């Protein structure tokens, strides 16, 4: 019994040589997959490099929503407002005040988290649909604010954003060393991945500790949660603050990579995209949130590629006749959301689990 008690939480209690080996091989498989994914931008076209950056940055925001919706069960339609709050904080500190990334990146997260706490008085009292409507209202107020507050946001025309400067090097400048070259996009991708990794580990730690169980309790039964000892209002506040913090950090990176920000981009559609990411990935799954971010970000480019071979899809919005790429991309991920909800509520995470299980079974029957 003692060894069971001392086993770290989250690790299977079943010990023994068999599972331990499969644990090792699965860890090796993970490392191979991660390294392969990290290598993708090295061998891909500039368009795909850009998509990889956007996917990694969106994944950070999606992880925030994963904590809020997936773990704590609180629906938010206002996520893009917090992405914007982080973005403008970073612009203000980085571009206007000339402060370095070590300052503007964490501060963007903290300021956005603080703004997220503004939703809390409502979140503590409302749930489900009513809460969703309040977060929608927050989004609308924020959109209005970005338009109005042109000192920071540049008004409806938008404004230039802060660069990422690391040790005197602007990250978006290409690095050339002999025959090797690292494009700005590639460098930014690795920065985004590093931040994403920290964000993912933090989210995982959270789900494994006291707060994670409290979140799960309010997600499943928030009335009972209180009686069990969960400080319900405080837990909801924490979930909103963490989600907004993640969104803020993503926003800071996003505007920097875009090199500009316009108020129009922080709209309801963007919030819905983040929701689509976690739904397609599988609500409640951390890896799913990241996979969903990649999926939703990549779809427009995939459709563009398809448009080249399939007639009837126009690649420019103004060209008459046929469906535009944007419309088709939106339809596709809308369809993906519906398909996931109907056929596999556990999303990409659930599907990949099934595939892995099937492969294992096959491998065992061959052995």
């Amino acid at each position, binding site marked *: 019994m003692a060894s069971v008690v001392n086993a770290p939480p989250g690790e299977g209690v079943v010990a023994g040589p068999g599972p331990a080996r499969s644990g090792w091989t699965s860890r090796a498989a993970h490392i191979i997959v991660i390294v392969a994914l990290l290598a993708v931008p090295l061998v891909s076209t500039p368009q795909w490099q850009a998509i990889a950056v956007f996917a990694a940055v969106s994944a950070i925001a999606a992880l925030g929503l994963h904590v809020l919706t997936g773990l704590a069960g609180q629906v938010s339609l206002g996520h893009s407002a917090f992405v914007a709050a982080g973005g403008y904080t970073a612009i203000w500190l980085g571009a206007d005040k000339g402060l370095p990334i070590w300052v503007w990146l964490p501060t963007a997260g903290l300021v956005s988290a603080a703004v997220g706490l503004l939703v809390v008085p409502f979140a503590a009292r409302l749930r489900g649909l009513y809460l969703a409507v309040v977060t929608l209202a927050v989004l609308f107020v924020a959109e209005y604010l970005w338009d109005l507050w042109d000192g920071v946001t540049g008004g409806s025309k938008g404004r230039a954003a802060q660069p990422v400067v690391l040790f005197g090097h602007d990250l978006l400048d290409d690095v050339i060393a002999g025959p090797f070259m690292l494009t700005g996009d590639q460098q930014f991708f690795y920065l985004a991945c590093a931040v994403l990794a920290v964000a993912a580990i933090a989210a995982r730690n959270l789900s494994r500790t*006291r707060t994670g169980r409290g979140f799960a309790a309010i997600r499943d039964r928030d009335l009972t949660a*209180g009686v*069990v000892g969960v400080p319900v209002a405080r837990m909801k506040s924490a979930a909103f603050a963490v989600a907004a913090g993640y969104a803020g950090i993503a926003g800071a990176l996003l505007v920097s990579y875009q090199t500009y920000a316009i108020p129009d981009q922080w709209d309801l559609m963007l919030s819905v995209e983040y929701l689509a990411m976690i739904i397609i990935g599988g609500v409640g799954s951390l890896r799913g949130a990241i996979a969903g971010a990649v999926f939703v970000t990549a779809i427009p480019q995939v459709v563009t590629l398809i448009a080249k071979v399939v007639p009837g899809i126009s690649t420019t919005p103004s060209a008459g006749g046929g469906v535009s790429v944007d419309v088709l991309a939106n339809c596709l991920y809308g369809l993906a959301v519906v398909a996931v909800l109907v056929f596999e509520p556990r999303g990409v995470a659930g599907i990949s689990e099934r595939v892995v299980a099937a492969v294992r079974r096959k491998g065992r029957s061959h052995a």
Partner: protein
Amino acid sequence: MTATTVLELADVTLNFSGVRSLDGVSLDVREGEVFGIIGPNGAGKSSLFNCVSGVYRPQQGSIRHRCREIRGARPDRINALGIGRTFQNVESFPTMTVLDSVLLGRISKQRVGVLRGMLWYGWAAREERESRAKAEEVLEMFGLGALRDTRVGELPGGTQRQVELCRALAAEPDVLLLDEPVAGMTHDEVESMVSAILDANERLGLTVVLIEHNMGVVMDICDRIAVLDFGRLVAVGTPAEIGANPDVLAAYLGSGAQADGA
């Protein structure tokens, strides 16, 4: 009877838009006793627990836990003070594993907050290990250790009741409120539940307040019994006194409810 009073209810009155579910109920629960509450369906027994655990706020009266007023306090605060409870209709978290459910019950004893939990798991590890040890210890009371990784929703009702009690015990309460803990249980399950309750009372020294329809169980294990009817306290006394009380008989026969349901 010089034992200290652990729970003291004075003139507790609870209304639901015209329906009076508790009508000036006053009673004392003493340290270390098993205190039974009986009465026909709709008598207000569960409402009484809901008032004590902070789910309902009675319009009138006072509820004291070790001389501290807790009427209207938040449920999680009341839990942290050491009042644990189970529910008449099992309130389990079906997607959680048995172990996680019991660990959840320990939340009021844990201290690692959001930031510390996120930034470095090492900070939480010690607390998690302690909680894990406590959870395993509690699960062993029912021999549930082997089910620790099973989802609660997949378990039969009787086992879910056991898990719920484990969840309450994980918080190391000093008072345990059990709302019909053996309802719907098989004979064997009733026995293991009763022995766990007695174990908690005798070995862990918990004060137990027990709502139960199974009169065999109530008469067997309770030190004192209170009878509720239409939200009013009809009688309080030892099992022998209650068994001989004509008012109690009238309450049951008058309401036409069965005294020994399960």
